[in-house]
């Protein structure tokens, strides 16, 4: 990878006060780097959903962004409960969010599907009791 920029952010589980900050910081950075708005839009949606998944479900996680001349790669790793059935979790409308989260407007079952929809390449791995890892690639051109 012909890397030109890399940055890692930490995201804490259950930290609703700061939820969304990492995604906003990434968006600001991509703007400063002169990335096209339609690409930033896709990255912002994917990052927000991944960030909220950590806040809602995991203990702690990291979001690493690697940018080269061709693509933006976002690697999201968390220490958390893991996902029992990935295929089911990828189904639009399916959610394991609590009633309280749903009342806050989360748990629409759109998170992972939205990430995939806005990615050019998407990989997900999860181990129960250990955590989940996402690799999101969005091509710049």
């Amino acid at each position, binding site marked *: 990878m012909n890397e030109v920029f890399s940055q890692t952010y930490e995201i804490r589980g259950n930290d609703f006060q700061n939820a969304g900050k990492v995604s906003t910081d990434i968006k600001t950075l991509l703007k400063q780097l002169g990335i096209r708005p339609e690409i930033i839009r896709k990255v912002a949606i994917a990052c927000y959903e991944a960030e909220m998944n950590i806040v809602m479900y995991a203990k702690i996680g990291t979001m690493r962004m690697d940018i080269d001349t061709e693509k933006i790669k976002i690697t999201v790793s968390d220490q958390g409960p893991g996902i029992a059935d990935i295929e089911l979790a990828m189904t639009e409308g399916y959610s394991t969010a609590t009633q309280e989260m749903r009342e806050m407007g989360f748990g629409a079952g*759109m998170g992972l599907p939205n990430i995939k929809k806005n990615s050019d390449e998407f990989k997900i791995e999860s181990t129960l009791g250990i955590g989940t890892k996402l690799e999101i690639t969005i091509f710049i051109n």
Partner: protein
Amino acid sequence: MKLEEIIRILNLKIITSEKFLNRTITGGYASDLLSDVIANAQSGNLWITMQTHINIVAVAVLKELSAIIIVNGRNPADDTIKKAEEQGVVIMCSDLPAFKLCGKLYELGIGKDN
């Protein structure tokens, strides 16, 4: 149309970021699901919602929304107000339910072109 133009007509109560009322409204989006707004609202849109908690602020920042209008006479939580002021997010409140407010906004021409 600018935010300041709809405030008097719709009798909206301004809660935060009064200095940004010259923002242009590009349309509107009504939803209480945050993922839906993240996926589908457009930059400069008004967001009509019943949600009042702090996480609506990050959504508005990320999507560069012109303002949030909280409906049904509900008021934002204190930490929501604080964060919105810090981030320059305009929050306004209406006593109307979402359907009626959206209808009035549409009558004013908001969202007719997009």
